[in-house]
């Protein structure tokens, strides 16, 4: 594959490794005793028979290697295979009873935060179903407790901690953004509303903080769909509106749990029937799978509907009709957290086929799709790591290029941003869209407009 600056042949060792100020200053503060104590504490108090079974059961067979986009993208360099990442982090910590060096920890932060998307693909390739992503999150938990989490992602957690949203969006800015979108949309649809805090609405619509911060148009689009479909919906005006959860990825379980709890409490306060959320993968995972557990709910206390399933519902029930199908050749990226994480891949394909004329699948796809390389908090470690992320995403670029599609549908925010980087870096000449973008473009918007 020919690309700019021939990035396909770069290996991570030839990419300059930046030194992250948060990691470095964190390491400086650590003493050998502290390192050992934290590691022992986490391994002893926060793990149990599950972890023990994973460590005891791995037969070192190497089948997980084939699963990992990092391994495949780096010319099958063994250190990128899933089991090797465990070997170079957790096994060593166990073997040395937590007595590990700062250099070891510097490497462990990188392995767990930047060389693994916790996409769980490898547990589908391990005959024993060993959950390596779980162990990488355990390493991140240790890094969090040692205060050596990469700077950018730590900042998003700080924001969560202070504002309950990921992007330091102030309370009034949030409301202001929603009203601004409502006002703009009213130019097109006279009676369109973005109802705030409407008690007992059928649906609470929820987004991640980057939407009000710099993608407010997505809220506009969602409102248009709700309007056209005649949905009784609302958005909360108070903190708890953001369903994203970066703390889930840094191992800051306490803050992660607080975020999810505030989110569910917001929905409870509004007495809504269901929660619908925008096209984001990790946010879905946070409230569908992880946040509920930390707050002791086996399953979420509300029905949580991802945008893909919601679009499917609107289109199959005929609440939204497509005026004219999208013409360009499209392909679909299956985000890990909603395909491998919630089996929505078939519904997604049905929606794409209802909206688009020319759909071509990626190979491999559905549960087996390659991660975008951005998820699991990797892209959130920020621009300093973009170079190596691009190297680590080569196999994704090859997968995209093989489709020959003009438009790439990425129904997840993290995937969207990550794929954007890949498309530019590998010069793929693909346009990247949310599924909502295409529905907005092709749907009949006039249904409920006045005078229609």
């Amino acid at each position, binding site marked *: 594959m020919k690309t700019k600056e021939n990035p396909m042949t770069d290996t991570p060792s030839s990419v300059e490794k930046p030194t992250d100020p948060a990691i470095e200053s964190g390491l400086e503060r650590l003493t050998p005793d502290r390192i050992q104590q934290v590691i022992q504490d986490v391994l002893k108090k926060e793990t*149990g028979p599950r972890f023990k079974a994973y460590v005891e059961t791995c037969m070192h067979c190497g*089948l997980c290697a084939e699963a990992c986009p990092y391994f495949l993208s780096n010319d*099958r360099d063994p250190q990128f295979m899933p089991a090797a990442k465990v070997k170079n982090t957790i096994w060593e910590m166990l073997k040395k009873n937590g007595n590990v060096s700062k250099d070891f920890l510097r490497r462990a932060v990188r392995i767990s935060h930047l060389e693994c998307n916790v996409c769980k693909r490898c547990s*589908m390739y391990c005959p*024993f179903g060993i959950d390596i992503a779980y162990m990488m999150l355990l390493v991140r938990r240790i890094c969090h407790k040692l205060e050596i989490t990469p700077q950018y992602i730590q900042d998003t957690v700080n924001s969560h901690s202070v504002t309950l949203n990921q992007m330091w969006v102030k309370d009034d800015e949030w409301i202001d953004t929603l009203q601004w979108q409502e006002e703009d949309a009213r130019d097109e649809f006279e009676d369109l509303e973005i109802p705030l805090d409407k008690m007992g609405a059928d649906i609470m619509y929820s987004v991640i903080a980057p939407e009000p911060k710099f993608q407010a148009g997505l809220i506009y689009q969602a409102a248009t769909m709700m309007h056209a479909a005649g949905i009784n919906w609302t958005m909360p005006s108070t903190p708890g509106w953001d369903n994203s959860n970066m703390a889930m990825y840094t191992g800051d379980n306490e803050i992660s749990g607080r975020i999810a709890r505030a989110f569910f409490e917001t929905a409870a306060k509004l007495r809504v029937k269901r929660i619908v959320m925008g096209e984001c993968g990790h946010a879905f995972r946070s409230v569908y799978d992880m946040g509920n557990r930390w707050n002791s709910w086996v399953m979420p206390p509300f029905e949580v509907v991802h945008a893909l399933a919601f679009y499917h519902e609107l289109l199959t029930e005929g609440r939204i009709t497509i005026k004219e199908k999208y013409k360009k050749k499209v392909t679909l990226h299956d985000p890990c957290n909603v395909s491998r994480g919630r089996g929505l891949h078939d519904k997604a394909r049905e929606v794409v086929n209802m909206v688009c004329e020319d759909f071509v699948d990626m190979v491999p796809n559905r549960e087996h799709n390659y991660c975008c390389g951005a998820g699991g908090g990797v892209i959130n470690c920020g621009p300093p790591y973009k170079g190596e992320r691009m190297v680590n995403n080569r196999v994704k670029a090859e997968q995209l290029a093989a489709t020959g599609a003009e438009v790439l549908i990425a129904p997840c925010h993290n995937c969207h941003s990550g794929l954007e980087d890949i498309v530019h870096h590998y010069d793929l000449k693909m346009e990247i869209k949310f599924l909502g973008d295409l529905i907005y473009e092709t749907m009949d918007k006039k249904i409920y407009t006045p005078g229609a």
Partner: protein
Amino acid sequence: MNSFIAFIMGPMVWISVIIFLGGLTFKLVGILGAVRQKEPYIYSYMTLKHSLRSIGAWMIPFFPRSARMSPIYYGISYLFHILLFLVPLFLASHIVLINEAFQISWPALNDSVADGLTAGVIAALIFFVVRRFRVPEVNYLTSAMDYILILVVLLPFLTGFLAYHQWVAYQWITVIHILSGELMLIIIPFSRFSHMLNAPLTRAYMGSEFGQVRQAKDW
């Protein structure tokens, strides 16, 4: 010497079988108890249906994508595991011994077939060793213990093979055969061989998470 042979063919067999079965039972009870105590959430997510679905899917030859991507290793490994149980349990000379002791018996493999299958097990083990050397990602993970474990399995099959053919030192080979067979049984609960117990459990848990919560396939 005779009393030594009587010991390893008598009480020692009992001891090793008891350690093998008792050890695995003890381990299972320990795991289930520890899960209840430390990670009870696991029981909230385990379902019989999805556990069996996942284990079943992984038992079908070449059904999981992972198996299809590494067909040679997977195929050899699959046959190896079947033979590991089949050959010792259906070997005529083993059945004769059991019949002498308990007056029970079952159909045996034809001796020359069993001989060929034993050679197959040995060949598979040699393949595993070569693979550990030759495939970089496997080599990267390999520790001395991996070779020791292979050796522990190799010994009873190799000595069984040699004893059958009676080429050299028949009696000594037989003694080593018996001892190494017992050693293998004893080691199972205390080594990564305990994956014969753990693997169905970890697979069942992952299968349940995928089937129940994630509503996706895990193969």
